[in-house]
């Protein structure tokens, strides 16, 4: 039975709370433990936040597309936008390790959290702009 969700949302930070609630209730319907569900919600929030902040440069008139898809082996989440493409160095995986406070980079944490939460993460950019991040979580047997 197809229980996928497809959502189109304005790039308005006020809507992030609603997106989190929706993602949470969908994830909860798929036998995911509480801690993992918390982390998935966080990661999706981070993906949306990046799109608002960077792809749409803080503007609320952009559009985010979210897809929540349950395949046999994994749950798949996709967040895409039609804004400024993110340079590839921004989406590279970097190891998270306890830093010195003075060395702390305020940016980039969101993407690293996405890598930490999901089993597979794929960033792609459109030729004429836009970004799409696909995130997969293996389903428990």
């Amino acid at each position: 039975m197809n229980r996928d969700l497809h959502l189109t949302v304005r790039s308005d930070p006020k809507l992030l709370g609603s997106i989190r609630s929706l993602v949470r209730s969908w994830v909860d319907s798929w036998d995911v433990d509480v801690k993992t569900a918390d982390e998935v919600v966080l990661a999706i929030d981070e993906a949306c936040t990046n799109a608002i902040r960077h792809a749409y440069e803080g503007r609320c008139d952009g559009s985010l597309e979210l897809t929540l898809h349950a395949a046999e082996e994994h749950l798949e989440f996709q967040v895409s936008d039609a804004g400024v493409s993110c340079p590839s160095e921004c989406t590279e995986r970097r190891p998270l390790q306890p830093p010195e406070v003075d060395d702390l980079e305020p940016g980039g944490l969101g993407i690293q959290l996405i890598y930490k939460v999901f089993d597979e993460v794929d960033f792609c950019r459109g030729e004429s702009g836009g970004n799409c991040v696909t995130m997969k979580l293996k389903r428990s047997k």
Partner: protein
Amino acid sequence: MGLTIDKEKSSSGFLIRVVGEVDLYSSPELREAILKAVPSAEGGLAIDMAGVTYIDSSGVATLVEGLRSAREHGTGFALVSPSPAVLQVLELARLDSIFEVR
């Protein structure tokens, strides 16, 4: 949902009590409250996070900025009773050891 921020000054320092969700929408308000409080927080600044039900990287960045600002001003900065949501994200981001926690 949403965020409330209460500020309390006492002889032992300055307390900011945060209740609700800290995300891209609400973190600027918290950032402003923290950075405004630091210069006058003799005795240190404490952020009560018992009532934080959600925090993301923008919220964490705000706390880091607060810590840095406090250090520059030579004043203390601590998280008080961080909720499980706060601890979970700090741990995930490997930032759990950089804050003083009470």
